[in-house]
């Protein structure tokens, strides 16, 4: 189906990479490591799922890292300082981040502005607002946090599938279904194929734009809550640059940065590849953790080149046709 070849390549890279790692460090091939990998990258998987929708629709969302940061600070302060029950705090922050995304989508559509600029403004806004709330790290000691942190499904081989990993997997599956099976999903692809054409064909482009950015910000809010579970703290400097990590995961997963093609599964594989590189570096012990970034950069280049190659291949017969008739 659509975008399968790039996804297949991503899957092959993941499997081959994992096999290589396992050859060098046999311990990597265990449910324990895999469970940790899922837990460590839970927030990234969630936010990258939202990013996939945005990028397939032909947009980009640079604000998600800041929304995560704001969420952690807001949740920590609400629970620890303002005495709000955790669940109420969660609902409030999710409503807030959804509204934030909807506002960005509306601005993009109504004023016909590039998403890059609007979400860049959103990024500064959310980051600045989190500093306004608190410049210091706020530890969260609420009992619900330790309950959730302790919760885990035992996997064969001693691995732990934590609550936040389960949340991430559920969201990825939900994302796959939403994109593949619903009218909303078809419209996301339609927007990426061409906004003007999609509008001519009856797609309510404005509503779709609002909904897509709302979804992205909402998932960033959930990722923020998950991140606060992961670190048991709220800090205004958390998740700096995560928007770029998630864009990288989306592109490595075979989604076209120009929109119109891609899949959530691919993005999930992209997240796992980044996690795998990180794990390898941890196992090696002598490498600087910055090698993760370098390896991600190299992979990104490779995948962008690969996509351009595929696109050029796909276009060639069409170009020949056009040349023949003109």
């Amino acid at each position, binding site marked *: 189906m659509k975008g399968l070849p790039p996804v297949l390549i991503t899957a092959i890279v993941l499997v081959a990479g994992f096999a290589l790692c396992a050859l060098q460090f046999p311990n990597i091939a265990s449910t324990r490591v895999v469970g940790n990998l899922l837990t460590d990258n839970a927030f990234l998987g969630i936010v990258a799922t939202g990013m996939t929708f945005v990028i397939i629709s032909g947009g980009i969302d640079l604000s998600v890292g800041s929304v995560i940061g704001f969420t952690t600070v807001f949740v920590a302060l609400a629970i620890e300082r303002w005495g709000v029950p955790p669940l109420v705090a969660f609902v409030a922050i999710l409503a807030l981040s959804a509204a934030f995304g909807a506002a960005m989508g509306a601005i993009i559509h109504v004023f016909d502005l590039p998403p890059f600029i609007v979400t860049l403004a959103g990024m500064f806004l959310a980051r600045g607002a989190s500093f306004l709330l608190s410049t210091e790290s706020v530890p969260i000691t609420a009992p619900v946090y330790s309950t959730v942190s302790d919760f885990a499904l035992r996997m064969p081989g001693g691995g732990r599938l934590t609550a936040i990993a389960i949340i991430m997997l559920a969201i990825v599956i939900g994302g796959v279904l939403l994109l593949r099976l619903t*009218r909303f999903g*078809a419209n996301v*692809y*339609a927007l990426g194929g061409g906004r003007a*054409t999609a509008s001519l064909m009856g*797609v309510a482009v404005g509503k779709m734009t609002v909904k897509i950015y709302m979804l992205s910000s909402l998932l960033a809010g959930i990722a923020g809550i998950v991140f606060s579970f992961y670190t048991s703290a709220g800090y205004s400097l958390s998740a700096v640059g995560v928007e770029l990590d998630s864009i990288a995961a989306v592109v490595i997963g075979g989604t076209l940065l120009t929109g119109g093609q891609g899949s959530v599964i691919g993005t999930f594989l992209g997240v796992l590849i980044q996690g795998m590189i990180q794990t390898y570096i941890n196992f090696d012990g002598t490498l600087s953790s910055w090698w993760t970034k370098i390896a991600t950069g190299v992979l990104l280049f490779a995948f962008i080149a690969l996509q351009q190659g595929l696109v050029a291949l*796909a276009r060639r017969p069409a170009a020949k*046709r*056009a040349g023949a*008739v003109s």
Partner: protein
Amino acid sequence: MENSLDPAPSLLEVRGISKSFGAVRALQEVDFTLRAGEIHALLGENGAGKSTLIKVITGVFPRDAGVVRLGGEEVAPRSAKAALQAGIATVYQEVNLLPNLSVAQNLFLDRQPMRFGIVREGEMRRRAKALLTEFGLDIDVAAPLGNYSIAIQHVTAIARAVDLSARVLILDEPTASLDRHEVEILFGIMRQLARRGIGIVFVSHFLDQVYEISDRITVLRNGRLVGERETASLPRLELIRMMLGRELAETTGARAAANDRPPREICASFENYGKAGYVAPFNLELRHGEVVGLAGLLGSGRTETARLVFSAERADGGQAKVEGASVRLQSPRDGVRHGFGYCPEERKTDGIVAELTVRENIVLALQAKRGLHRPLSRREQDELARRYVKMLDIRPPDAERPVGLLSGGNQQKVLLARWLATAPRLLVLDEPTRGIDVGAHAEIIRLIRELCDDGLALLVISSELDEIVTYSDRVVVLRDRAHVEELSGEAIDVTNILAAIAADGAAMQEARA
């Protein structure tokens, strides 16, 4: 419509439509009638108002005056989408579908069969398959639309439009990028739809196809209705006269007696010059102090010839000489270097830079010719601008005004000035009088004559035959991307040009053989 006595009731009635863009009157009191079940060709040269009429009918442009009735009821769609809902669908030459979606999704976007909020993919594919089978297509509807040829994409677009309960189907140049076989398939589908009672508007500049498929023909010229005829009883020559001519009988005598001068030396010559699939090889001599007119229908290869001569397009065969010396024309830079100038037809997109001032537009080509390391001083620029504003009577005479604020005729003059500033030996003008008002029209023609008297060689394209007759010393007639006739002296008149354009291809070849 079952109560109507008329065997072919009118389905779409357009009455007295007018539309202006600023000072340009694109449509004036145009009527158009489409009957149910007919294929109606809408013809006219570039700028005749065909696409404006379509866009006004479908609500893309608001209209200034007039009524549109569909099945007797007045409709006034505000957008293409509203027109579609009213039952008027348009399929443009560049297919307005999404190549990244599957064929089935394209057919059913935003109206997919659903169950519990989930698209019933299987059901959607079955329906898509069934729908396309009606149109004689048996393809994998799950594959992306972009994988298929333009012809199949066209048919898909038509199928979608018809399935959206279109009663009027407007096909704008649908055959322009199709091969012969694909055109046959499309025509089969059009006939089948017409039998079902759908009214089809067919816009094309391929006259053979118009005669093959259409029942009636409406011709527009310069935003006005010229006439509506039955295709079967309209001779081709008469049709071309409707499309090109004005009150032709009187114009033959209006020719200026400017061509009695002795022939001058050759400025540039082209031998066997051509490009495969663009223009057939031609021979062309351009002399100093001479105007050569290029006549022919839209798509006959006039602009293509002009672009080859200027070197905007690279020839793949033949020889070019400038002042007797062989030259290689690879890119527009070569053309400019040899003293060629080119005023393209699309002033707005290919010619003027609307945001820059008159002065800046005028010095553009000269500065480019001199190169960046020899900048024109501001004084030289002012001097140039002042000279040409005066010489060409550019109004308002303000060299610091952005060109975009000038009228069409004055924009054209600025373009002319730009090339004149480079002191060219050959100037190519593509439709220099298109879209400018009558007064400016006459002035441009006067300028063309004057420039020519100054020893410039001119190659001028125009759809206005009486205009070409007025200023040309020789006229080259094109048909089907080939030069078919060259007229000079007394032979230049509208009747001869029309005859050359209309001449049946086969008969012509026999005559030559």
